[in-house]
């Protein structure tokens, strides 16, 4: 017996804003927006770079920086045009070998001889390794530098193999990690004051941990109503299993306090994205905590994942894909949404779209955000990954950023995590997406 699903679509691709004091600087495409208007935040004229690289690659890295400054056929005008800034190398530190221990030694030497207030981003040339191995130059360098307050950007051989298309993504990530805001949404998301991409109970690396019992950390990325990433907060220390309430309380208290200080208003409409299914204990805990922290509030618990067997096609579309921004209702509070199907904003697509399963698990005390607004919210958030100018990004930035940190927490030691979260480092890193 055939089953019929109702569907819907988002009519217009959300616009992005590329100038904080010129509301006419809008464009739906990241690449063309940056090329026409430059970045949203035009206050950074120079990004100070440190370089850690094998000596044999040092010239190649410097040439790359030079080209980023001067521009390329894909990025005419280079960093100055696209991001209103120049890259200036302030420290160079050659590595003797590509062994993990060499990178660790050099990173420690770097942090001991430098000051994080004088270096915006450290560019590290590393050998290509799988992200599923923990003891690699990538993770060890990232962890050591972050634990001392440095944002880092890794480059590998594959960066150079695909250099033509690497420039802009690299430039955008460097600019964001230096504290710049490349772009935000043009319009506010409906009925949202604060958006949280939360992750709790992440196992800390066993290899780098003393003791026997499993330890967990939690963290949250905070976004404003324009989808602008504001800051990152993590639990100050690791927890034992089952301490969800404490983790959540610590995270949410920090997040709301900081949000209020920055925005000068107390948020009322809170939306929380989670890449796992919300459990009752988790939702109950959050509501209890928000009762204490905010008093008058609405909260929406949204889970977004792609672990489902569904595929949807559209025979009316030339390539048969389910177009971007189209979605099918699986129920009153659940949709399957396409973010990488046919669209006018991109020419090239890759395969059958892997749909996002979006579930509004609960809205408390009553429904304050419709499923259609939620769909638009999630589509909008796919456009805010500052690490790429690619027009088609499948996941919303709330999930992407959480996932990036999850990879890191799995490989950093408890001590390193504590260092990253300690106040003097947090003051620098919490406002820079150092983990992307």
């Amino acid at each position, binding site marked *: 017996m055939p089953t019929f699903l109702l569907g819907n679509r988002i009519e217009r691709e959300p616009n992005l804003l590329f100038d904080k004091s010129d509301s006419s600087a809008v464009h739906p495409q990241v690449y063309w927006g940056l090329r026409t208007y430059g970045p949203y935040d035009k206050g*950074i*004229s120079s990004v100070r770079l440190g370089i850690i690289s094998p000596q044999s690659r040092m010239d190649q890295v410097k040439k790359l920086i030079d080209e980023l400054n001067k521009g390329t056929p894909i990025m005419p005008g280079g960093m100055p045009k696209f991001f209103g800034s120049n890259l200036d190398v302030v420290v160079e530190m050659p590595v003797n070998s590509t062994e993990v221990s060499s990178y660790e030694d050099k990173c420690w030497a770097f942090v001991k001889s430098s000051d994080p207030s004088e270096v915006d981003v450290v560019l590290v040339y590393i050998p290509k390794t799988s992200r599923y191995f923990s003891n690699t130059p990538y993770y060890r360098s990232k962890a050591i530098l972050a634990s001392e307050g440095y944002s880092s950007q890794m480059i590998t051989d594959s960066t150079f193999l695909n250099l033509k298309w690497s420039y802009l993504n690299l430039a955008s990530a460097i600019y964001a990690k230096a504290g710049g805001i490349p772009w935000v949404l*043009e319009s506010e998301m409906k009925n949202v004051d604060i958006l949280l991409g939360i992750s709790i109970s992440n196992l800390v690396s066993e290899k780098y941990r003393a003791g026997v019992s499993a330890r967990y950390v939690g963290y949250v990325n905070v976004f404003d109503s324009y989808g602008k990433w504001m800051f990152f907060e993590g639990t100050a220390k690791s927890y034992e299993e089952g301490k969800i309430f404490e983790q959540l309380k610590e995270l949410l208290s920090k997040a709301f306090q900081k949000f209020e200080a920055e925005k000068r208003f107390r948020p009322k409409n809170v939306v929380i994205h989670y890449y796992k299914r919300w459990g009752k204990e988790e939702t109950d805990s959050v509501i209890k905590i928000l009762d204490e922290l905010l008093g008058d509030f609405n909260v929406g618990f949204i889970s977004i994942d792609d672990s489902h067997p569904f595929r949807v096609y559209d025979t009316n579309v030339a390539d048969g894909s389910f177009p971007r921004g189209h979605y099918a209702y699986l129920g009153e509070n659940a949709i399957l949404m396409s973010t990488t199907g046919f669209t*006018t904003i991109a020419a090239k697509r890759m395969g059958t779209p892997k749909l996002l399963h979006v579930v509004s698990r609960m809205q408390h005390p009553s429904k304050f955000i419709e499923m259609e607004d939620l769909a638009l919210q999630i589509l909008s958030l796919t456009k805010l990954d500052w690490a790429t100018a690619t027009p088609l990004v499948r996941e919303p930035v709330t999930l992407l950023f959480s996932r990036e940190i999850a990879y890191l927490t799995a490989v950093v030691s408890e001590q390193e995590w504590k260092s990253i979260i300690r106040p003097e480092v947090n003051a620098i890193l919490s406002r820079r997406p150092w983990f992307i």
Partner: protein
Amino acid sequence: MSSLRVMEEKIRSIIDKDIQSSFGLEIERREDPLGNSIFLFFLTRNKIESRAVDALIDWTNSWIDIILNQRKFSRFVDKEVTSALLGFYALKSVGRLRIEVDTDKLVGLISEFVTDDSFFDNFTYTTLILFSLVKQRSKIPMFNRLFEGIRRNLHKEALFNDVKNLIFASLLLEAINAQDDLKRLVRACFEKVEKNAVRFDDRVYYAWVLWYNRRIMEERDLPKIINFTKDALENTARIFGTEELDESVIEMYGYDTEPEKFPKMLLGTTLDLLISFNASRIMLPVPNIVYIEQKLSSLGWTEAWRELDKALEGFEDGRMSDCCNNLRMGLIIVWIKVCEKLEGKPIPTQVGKTVDIGRLNKCLETHGLPEDTIGMVSRTWSYVSDRAHIEKRGGQAPSELEVRYGIQLAFATIEHLLRLV
């Protein structure tokens, strides 16, 4: 130059279309009120009239009422207040403001948005608000403090990073008559031009600052400013034209779905500069017109420049005898003033009567000017005077060719006279 004329028309048309496209779309207007005010500022400054401009003026009047009087803000209060104030300034400047705004209440309103030494913690908005309220500054207690905040930022690199701030800052400095700061700012722009440190897309903004402030620059810098402005405007045509693209860009990032969309600030600035630059096009063949303007200004002989300026305007409008009359007036004022300066005493004149030319000739002779040069000055005076009095020509206006020659003669003569003092 004809290509710049074409470009001026093209940009006017883009702006008209942009304004018309939002007719009746209240939401869009609300989303970009600052863009609308920026358009309005540049359009009214150049006395441009059209249906679209009328609609924009109507909208701005109601916007001012909604924001400044009724205080109906959304979360975009920074853009809303700034845009309403700039609109207020623009309409007031051209006598099209139909809304009463109480200054005391206005001061109360803006006071609410002061954080440390700025409005909304934003340099651009602070500059624009102060510029818009410069005439009311004596009634705004925090004006000077906020202006000092602007001054402190004038020489920071971040100012040059967001080029639209150069325009607003120079407008503010000029409006407040902060000549030293303005000179420093203009000089800093010029140095960047000299070092070729100005990005392609930013050139028109630098050109705007240099062109409008050319009078405060050294005489030797002027040819460079003129050439830079001309090149910047000609190159800007590429921004508004069709760009040749690497095909792979489209494959990777898709077609630009909004190729006709341009920053409103860029459109407004370019149009403003084009109008001013194009209007001066008959000056350009006269090598030292900028010298004359600057010299008259420094001597305080502004009435002479006013006549010359009107002469050029008359020529532009096809009013040939008016042009000659203004040339004649400009020349005689300069001639008298030069003689007074050389002799150190006033030249006797009678209201309603032409000054004694023989007396002026004598003065020049006394101060060593060769006879044939004096003859040229005299004959130039006669040439433009004859063409100013059409009643003596049977009501026949002089031809464009004759007047063009008269302009060249008069300006060359005035330059020569000015170099005597």
